[in-house]
């Protein structure tokens, strides 16, 4: 079994514990960070859309275990978010240190909208309203700040597998 196959689940479980115990209580305008969404975004930024989608699926399934929303909904949303984060980053040929952080913030903002659209698609009502934009802004802010710490962790978790595309520092 490859090393990422061991480290990535470990990272996802650790992130879920931190999301549930610490981040759920750190709120701005009643909005908390979305660490489980940030993982596939960072995986996509560092290693391309393939890894982004796979990490997104796994982190979404892990989160769905503790939510009351339809099982698989977060997996679907985060798969898409991780994939497209990997595609966007792939268009940047030279990356300064702040580009992945900015990408993480922007991708998180888009990811919240994707999540709301997916949720509406599976029958969750009333998520697309004025408050959505507050959630978009605060999650982008939180996740942008957190990405500075999460990117090295995801890089560590993915190390040892097939060589990722070298387009991010």
């Amino acid at each position, binding site marked *: 079994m490859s090393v990422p196959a061991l480290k990535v689940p470990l990272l996802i479980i650790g992130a879920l514990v931190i999301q549930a115990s610490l981040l759920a209580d750190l709120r701005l305008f009643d909005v908390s960070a979305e660490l489980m969404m940030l993982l596939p975004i960072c995986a996509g930024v560092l290693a*391309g859309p393939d890894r982004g989608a796979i990490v997104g699926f796994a982190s979404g399934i892990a989160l769905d275990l503790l939510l009351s929303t339809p099982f698989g909904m977060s997996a679907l949303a985060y798969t898409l978010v991780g994939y497209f984060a990997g595609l966007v980053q792939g268009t940047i040929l030279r990356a300064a240190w702040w580009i992945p952080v900015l990408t993480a913030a922007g991708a998180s903002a888009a990811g919240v909208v994707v999540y709301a659209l997916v949720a509406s698609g599976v029958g969750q009502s009333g998520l697309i309203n004025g408050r959505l934009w507050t959630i978009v802004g605060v999650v982008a802010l939180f996740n942008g700040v957190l990405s500075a710490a999460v990117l090295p962790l995801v890089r560590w978790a993915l190390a040892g597998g097939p060589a990722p595309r070298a387009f991010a520092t």
Partner: protein
Amino acid sequence: MALSRRTGRSRFTLILLVLTSITVITLDFRGAGGGVFEDVRERALDLFAPVTDAADSVFDPVGEAWNGVFKYGDLEEENARLKEQLAELQGDRASIEETEQALEELLDQSSLSYARDVPQVSATVISSPLSNFELSFEIDKGRDAGIKEGMTVVAGRGLVGRVVRVSDGRSVVELLTDRDFAVGVRLATSGEVGIAAGGGRDQPMRLSGIDPGVDIRRRELVTTSGLPQSAFPPRIPVGRIEEAVSERGELEQEVLLAPLVDVDQLRFVKVLLWEAPS
């Protein structure tokens, strides 16, 4: 060539995972495998409980420092509101000892004026919502305490929500502010019945099914209806009428209801061990 192979593999991975997710969602909706996903979720809830409890004990100081910085104003307002409420209840100036005793009684969740004959389980709220789109919280009691899915959750002032998931030692409560929440209610003055649905965080509930000819007073109390087949016990306070608009030609009034319980400030709740008659 290599690039197009990589792109093709990425798309294949995406399609495979998307189809898998959709399949899982569909199976969950249909309750496939005798609710295997619900069983998995219950096991996960119990498995994570000690881990998150341990993590909570480590991270609580961080959360409290954060709330101290960002919620100081809210705490001041809540403190002022409680003091004003105490003064109204007492009606006259009282000694410091009487003030402290009245505060303890006000905050004591054990003396509910409704549901006296319904067995109850006290519980502590142990987690905030895990998702920004879900209005729910977790309590520290579960199946071991006799709690079952669908049971009503209340606090001192009235309805809080209902249990949507139960494991051996934990339960997840859907709040009455959640947009998927609905409860049959009755107006205290006229006795008219309707359906109150959650309006979202910090939003009033929407009351539907009220005839345009019914006289509704502002701040009128609304309780659970207790009709046959109702999922909630009768006469539990839900909220007070905030606004009622009757437009000419409309089939029902547009009524907004302010929940009595501030679900964002709860620490202790009670679960009513009451099941709807089948």
